[in-house]
């Protein structure tokens, strides 16, 4: 070592040792051979293929979203494990430990912030990844199965966030989890307060009880959520993640155009840069913003308003419009099942491996951007996604104390006087309304069309079809407005003024539609009033019918292409989504609570 004539160099010496050779099986010069060996010879890099189409790794194709969500998951694992060293899951200690982390532990605030913000980022990135995969058709055969795995991973991501939310044991945590757990109590059949509850189900053995380990949230819940959050769900998550990544490798990337390039260094370097970028974002975010921590959990005081974490605020907002079993159990289940069903009902082979081009299309006076290929699939999926985020926006920015409507620029007031009153539509009318809405989904199969055309002339099927839709639209309009106007509770439209969006739009105007109509009906004499109301009903009915007709052609084509079963799945999911939107509008504009209400079965829609 001290020989000056021949300078000793450590590296070549080390490289000759058996230990080095046993770990590194190849040298690191940049030759085509080593590029392959790096991927083959490394268990982690072997997740990736050796060579990949150049276009597939373009940033603007995938935006690296899948890889980024994987990386964020790793960050969450690391920070989470570190946090566990200081955290004790007992109600007497948990809150104190979090305070310790934020005040007395070296790097404690940073790790906690990073864990919290990374969790938020992961939800965003996972959703964005799903949207990307949908829009580039990457879920189509042979990747249907992997799409389903992906949806399961999305659900697990949300469940991980939910279980982690309780752990700080502050008011925010307690009440978000109370609301969430109560949804389980409203599960049909197995929930104590759900519809069609089994006779032996009580608060002490229903679905909620098993989730929180008691009848009220307490120590049992905390340890349960701790185990779920730190061990059980991550364990399952990892299994599904392995399958997901392995499947990507087996089914190959969705884009196959362009020359093949070596994954090392082309893809690996991109992934590394993306990881660096994400890490920087998380660092800056954690330095600038502290993770929220409110007062210690107290079952006797509900913060006003108490909001779920943002990714569940959409669900919370949905809970305003629907009964818990619907909004908390049925709709989320249908959303998940619907997402899973997408690759199996979408038989259109187009649109795989590229972003669809958009073109302008004019609808009367308006002109909007429409995707050139798969217009129906893309617009429905995007509408659903946007609707979800609109609900999140409303819940986050438009809801104040007592969950009342405030515009984002309005200051909250705890003493604002709002005598909100809602009204049910009588069951008969409501039932008719729902039935006509569902009937809007009926197609006219090609065979039936031929049959009718053969019997009654070529134009008859079209006319019949149009007539059916106009009739249904009119029926819906009548069922909606007539009971509102002839309701015995005469001051209903007046009292509902606070509930309506119009009221929120300008509290000073104080002139909602129904209120004015009602006055016309009452004061301008029955003839004039009825005429005006009749015209309005007619107009609304015609509009609804026209919309039905506009979608008619598409419905018929879809039915012929998909067959009965797939068509039924698609149309019922579509109707459900639009129905949710419709019900929200009915609530906001007219203050309608239920269309059908059967309290003895806890069944209300």
């Amino acid at each position: 070592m001290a020989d000056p004539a021949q300078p000793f160099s450590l590296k070549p010496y080390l490289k000759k040792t058996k230990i080095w050779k046993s770990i590194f099986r190849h040298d690191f010069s940049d030759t085509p051979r080593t590029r392959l060996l790096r991927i083959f010879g490394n268990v982690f890099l072997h997740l990736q293929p050796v060579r990949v189409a150049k276009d597939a790794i373009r940033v603007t194709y995938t935006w690296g979203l899948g890889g980024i969500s994987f990386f964020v998951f790793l960050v969450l694992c690391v920070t989470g494990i570190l946090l566990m060293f200081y955290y004790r899951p007992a109600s007497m200690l948990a809150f104190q430990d979090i305070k310790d982390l934020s005040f007395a532990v070296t790097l404690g605030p940073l790790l906690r912030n990073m864990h919290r913000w990374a969790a938020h980022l992961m939800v965003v990135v996972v959703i964005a990844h799903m949207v990307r995969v949908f829009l580039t058709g990457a879920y189509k055969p042979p990747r249907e199965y992997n799409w389903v795995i992906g949806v399961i991973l999305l659900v697990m991501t949300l469940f991980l966030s939910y279980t982690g939310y309780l752990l700080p044991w502050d008011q925010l945590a307690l009440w978000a989890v109370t609301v969430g757990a109560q949804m389980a109590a409203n599960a049909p059949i197995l929930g104590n307060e759900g519809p069609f509850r089994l006779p032996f189900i009580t608060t002490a053995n229903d679905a909620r009880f098993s989730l929180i380990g008691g009848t009220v949230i307490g120590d049992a819940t905390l340890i349960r959520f701790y185990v779920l959050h730190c061990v059980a769900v991550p364990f399952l998550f990892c299994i599904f993640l392995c399958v997901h990544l392995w499947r990507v490798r087996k089914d190959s990337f969705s884009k196959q155009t362009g020359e093949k390039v070596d994954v090392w260094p082309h893809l690996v370097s991109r992934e590394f840069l993306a990881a660096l970028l994400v890490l920087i974002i998380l660092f800056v975010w954690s330095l600038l913003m502290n993770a929220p921590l409110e007062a210690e959990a107290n079952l006797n005081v509900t913060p006003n308003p108490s909001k779920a974490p943002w990714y569940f605020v959409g669900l919370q907002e949905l809970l305003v419009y629907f009964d818990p079993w619907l909004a908390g159990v049925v709709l989320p289940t249908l959303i998940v099942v619907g997402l899973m069903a997408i690759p199996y009902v979408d038989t259109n082979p187009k649109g795989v491996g590229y972003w669809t081009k958009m073109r302008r299309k004019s609808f009367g006076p308006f002109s909007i951007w429409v995707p050139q290929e798969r217009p129906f699939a893309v617009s429905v999926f995007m509408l659903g996604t946007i609707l979800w985020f609109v609900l999140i926006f409303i819940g986050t920015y438009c809801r104040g104390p007592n969950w009342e409507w405030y515009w984002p620029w309005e200051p909250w007031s705890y003493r604002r006087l709002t005598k909100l009153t809602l009204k049910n539509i009588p069951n008969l009318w409501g039932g008719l309304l729902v039935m006509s809405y569902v009937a809007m989904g009926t197609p006219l199969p090609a065979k039936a069309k031929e049959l009718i055309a053969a019997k009654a002339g070529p134009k008859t099927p079209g006319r019949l079809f149009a007539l059916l839709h106009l009739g249904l639209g009119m029926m819906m309009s009548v069922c909606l407005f007539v009971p509102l106007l002839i309701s015995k509770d005469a001051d209903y439209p007046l009292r509902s003024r606070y509930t309506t969006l119009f009221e929120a739009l300008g509290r000073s105007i104080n002139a909602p539609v129904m209120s004015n109509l009602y006055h016309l009906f009452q004061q301008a004499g029955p003839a004039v009033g009825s005429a005006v109301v009749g015209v309005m009903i007619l107009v609304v009915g015609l509009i609804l019918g026209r919309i039905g007709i506009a979608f008619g052609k598409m419905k018929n084509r879809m039915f012929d292409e998909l067959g009965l079963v797939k068509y039924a799945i698609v149309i019922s999911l579509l109707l459900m989504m639009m129905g949710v939107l419709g019900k929200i509008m009915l609530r906001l504009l007219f203050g309608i609570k239920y269309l059908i209400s059967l309290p003895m079965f806890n069944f209300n829609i």
Partner: protein
Amino acid sequence: MDDTPPVLSAPDQPTNPFEGLKSPNDMWKLLEERFGRRQFLLKSGWAFFWVFLGGWLLSNLRYLFPNVLYEPTLSFKAGKPADFPLGISEKWKKAQRTWIVRTDKGFYCFWARCTHLGCTPNWFDAENRFKCPCHGSNFNRDGDVVAGPAPKPLWRCAITMADDGQLLIDKGRLENRPGAREKGEFFLPYESA
């Protein structure tokens, strides 16, 4: 795992351990004809395995339902009736999560838990309503829903007079159906002097 052997193999295999048995059971024969012996063994093996696995999973599910709870008792004494003014008393809201309501006819008691998703509503005297902060449900003095998403009226607790002249409230017995909730143990007649 289940590389099923050819079905035909069963009857005349020399290595068959049952070959030596010259008095075959009728039932056994029937089964043999039906499935073949190895198939039958395999199938019953799987059946046992699934019985075990299903039972194991179910029993583990049962494991998640605790048999003892560390939760406070549900009944408490709320003090003398005369201590409550007419109207809604929030005296026991914090400790016991109940409102005690006194009317000129008598007493009833609400469980301060929104029937929507279990938040604790607040009483707004000026508006004569309970309002829930979570999803904006409103209840009137009778506990009926006047607005918001709550599907059911507020629960009323059983309220009786204890031997020492105090109000005895039991949150374990609840009622909210109009008609049933205004009588029996859910309403305590008490005339104001």
